């Protein structure tokens, strides 16, 4: 039933999102927007060399997109840029393929139910699209353009 999608961890993170704050000393940020539902997200990342030291977000969105941003920021800390991008690939695969190659996504596995709700996949991936933009933008500051899920 609907609990396959709204698992306890997701409900918990949507009601009490972690790392939900602006970050003054972030050196990378990006904005994400899902025009279909109006979800908006601002992502802050603090890199030290190649390492994600801290990540946070502010924005408004549905339970899935809020929980996804919350769990993503938790999982990023301590990862290298390359590891973060690999995690992004695995997460995307988890949501869009029937037989994802990797099952070692830890807590992020709670999003596997989203696969059965195609209309909601973009809610879960908004934060990750935004992360890609933040990490791949030029120079120190990430992309100036808002990424959209469309």
């Amino acid at each position, binding site marked *: 039933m609907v609990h396959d999608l709204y698992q306890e961890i997701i409900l918990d993170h949507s009601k009490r999102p972690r790392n939900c704050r602006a970050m003054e000393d972030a050196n990378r940020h990006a904005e994400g927007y899902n025009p279909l539902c109006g979800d908006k997200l601002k992502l802050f990342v603090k890199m030290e060399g190649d390492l994600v030291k801290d990540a946070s977000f502010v924005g408004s969105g549905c339970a*899935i997109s809020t929980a996804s941003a919350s769990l993503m920021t938790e999982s990023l800390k301590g990862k290298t840029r390359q590891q973060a991008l690999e995690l992004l690939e695995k997460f995307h695969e988890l949501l869009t393929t029937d037989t994802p190659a990797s099952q070692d996504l830890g807590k992020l596995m709670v999003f596997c139910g989203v696969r059965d709700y195609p209309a909601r996949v973009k809610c879960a991936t908004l934060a990750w699209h935004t992360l890609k933009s933040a990490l791949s933008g030029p120079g120190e500051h990430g992309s100036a353009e808002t990424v959209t899920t469309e």
Partner: protein
Amino acid sequence: MSTPSIQVSALFDVDKIRKDFPVLKQTVHGKPLVYLDSAATAQKPFAVIEAIRRFHEVDCANIHRGVHELSQRSTAAYEETRAKAKRFLNARSKSELIFVRGTTEAINLVASSWGRKNVKAGDEIVVTALEHHSNIVPWQMLCEEKGARLRVVPMNDRGELILEEYEKLLNPRTRLVAMAHVSNALGTINPVREMIAMAHKAGALVLVDGAQAAPHLKVDVQALDADFYAFSGHKVCGPTGIGILYGKSALLNAMPPYQGGGDMIRTVTFEKTTYNDLPYKFEAGTPNIAGGIGLGAALDYLTAIGLEKIAAYEHELLLYGTEALARIPGLKMIGTAREKAAVLSFVIEGIHPHDIGTVLDRQGIAVRTGHHCAQPVMDRFHVPATTRASLAFYNTPAEIDALAAGIGKVRELFA
């Protein structure tokens, strides 16, 4: 929870009507389907499905060309829909009814054909704050091309247009006013007759987007004195891909063709082409013949029930639904116009519409969530999106009870 106090008339035999709609007899995720998304598209009765099937099985041929029996049958059936549309809208003549793909194409036709010929730099086009994107963007494109100015009639917190402000916007530069008869996102029924008279006084023409009005209330283009009136087949229980543009003969005659091709011409040489008469001048290429025939069956179906009866029953459902939803803590209706069609658009504090939509869907309840192709309306009410339950004459008070109970479950989950 007790049921609302509003009495819904037993005189309207909704149980009998529901038997005409095969799609309603199904379960979704193990629950009986509760279809509350008729403003997006209305369901189709057997009569429409049968008319389309009959065309493909028995009469299938191209129209306006062949001398053979099948072509004559299909031409007659297709053209009969034009006559039905004339009666449905109370137009003066069949030649004032143009077949189009839908309301969107109808608006684009007028913006492109009439607009390009008549709108100049410095002119003004007026739209309203509650328009669907399809009645904003074609005018924006025209204004951009011509250096004209788009002006917007504001609305109040109930979702009603402010007529004093509208009056101030009208001036000798106003070429055309484009407005919805009924708002898709809010349900507001605009005072179009009065607004058309005001525009005419200022020397402007009026296009009415009737997509949300035609299924729910009796439209009389002569009484309204509308210059252009458009509606979509699929919202009046007909198929998708077919719709009607009404235009006054004098206006249509003076307009250049919209698209070139077969059927819209009288003679073609490489030096010069002469165009066909109305309405064919605007109908290039083989049209959606099956859709046109299906639309005819849909107009017959609605007419047999009676638009006045449909409007009265839906109004009772609206009152019933408004009361049922008003009892839900944290729920706020978006769109509370005094004149309103059966649209229940709402937000619930702390719960995103998409989560509401997903949880309702799992209970078999189909609603629309999002901005309803009316982002300026969402901005006006400072919400990113709403959940919209839109009702039709085949809905029942029991389905509204199911919606209210469903929202109760949503609140339990996200409390």
